[in-house]
């Protein structure tokens, strides 16, 4: 029972202090779980993080569930999950309350114009990072262009474009198998 509580508290701390999304949490998770608590070995942690990134959903949430389950079964998974989301939830509720009152003040509007300009830069940096890491095949850039044309040019729901990506991945895998067999 104590372990379950520590699990919750550890992820609560991680959820409270990392800015900039789930990827920023990874070093903190490693420090807490591998270095300090020694619950999971470095090698297993690398595996867990790589699976967490290939699963749908937020990386921080996925790794919390994986690690929680590893250490404390179903209850462990649930307590790690609650630990990582409760800080966000509480902070956002408070901020949303305040923001409703101040969002029409001109100075706040100007601040948010500046902030959203910086957010565009953050998105470009993220795009560059994904572009560097994700272009495995010669046709990968072509997939990006086709997806972009579909997203911007047609009214198609983004979910279908994601499904297209999954199907293309399977087709690429099929081609690889066929090529291997014919050799």
């Amino acid at each position, binding site marked *: 029972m104590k372990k379950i509580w520590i699990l919750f508290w550890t992820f609560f701390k991680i*959820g*409270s202090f*990392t*800015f*900039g*999304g*789930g990827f920023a949490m990874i070093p903190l998770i490693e420090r807490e779980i591998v270095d300090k608590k020694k619950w999971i070995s470095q090698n297993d942690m690398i*595996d867990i993080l790589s699976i967490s990134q*290939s*699963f*749908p*959903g*937020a*990386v*921080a*949430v996925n790794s919390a*569930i994986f690690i929680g389950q590893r250490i404390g079964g179903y209850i462990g*998974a649930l307590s790690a*999950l609650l630990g990582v*989301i409760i*800080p966000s*939830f509480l*902070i*956002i509720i408070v901020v*949303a309350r305040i*923001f409703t009152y101040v969002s029409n003040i*001109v*100075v706040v509007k*100007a601040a*948010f*114009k*500046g*902030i*959203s*300009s*910086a*957010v*565009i*830069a*953050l*998105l*470009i*940096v993220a*795009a560059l990072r994904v572009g560097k890491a994700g*272009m*495995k095949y010669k046709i*990968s*850039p072509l*997939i*990006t262009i086709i*997806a*972009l044309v579909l*997203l911007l040019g047609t009214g198609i729901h*983004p979910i279908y*474009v*994601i499904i297209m*990506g*999954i199907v293309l*991945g399977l087709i*690429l895998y099929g081609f690889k198998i066929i090529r291997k067999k014919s050799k």
Partner: protein
Amino acid sequence: MIYLELFITFFKIGLFCFGGGYGMIPLLEREIVIHNWLTSQEFINIISISEMTPGPIAINTATFVGYKTGGIPGGILATTGVVLPSLILILVISHLLYKYQHHPIIKEIIYGIKPVVLALIIQAAIFVAKNTFFKEGISIKTILNFNANGHFLKIINPATIAITVVSLIVLLVSKIHPILVILAAGAIGVILHFIGVL
């Protein structure tokens, strides 16, 4: 039934959100338009706030949109919806996954999704840029007209473009934490407002 809609919508988003929170922005934007939950400007403010507050972006935006449209119960349902697919999938198939995680098929699917995620992030950047670089209440039609008439400067906010360019350079060449870049950009926005250029 707003609560049920929130839950189902965020469950769907949680299920199809790959490669981090940025890829889900276009999904969420589409759902917000379909349900008429928020204006574009409100949504962009929510993205900005999610960047400034701790925690995963997916959780922050789910809680914020849920709260804005359905109060605290709405926030709880949207947040539960967005994490539930992860919880179910991981608890149900994680033991299988440990066995097959080095199976090439998982890698290949990821190689198929990554280029799509890139397209989604580019779309998210275009969406935010469209609502930030142009002055409020400008439609695409007026943009094209103005462009043809050569009065382009009257409808854009050059200050916002400058902030984006400077932030991008700072993020690429220095190791300054993104949260500091965001806070600085907000402060510059306020200063430029008092000078009268924003």
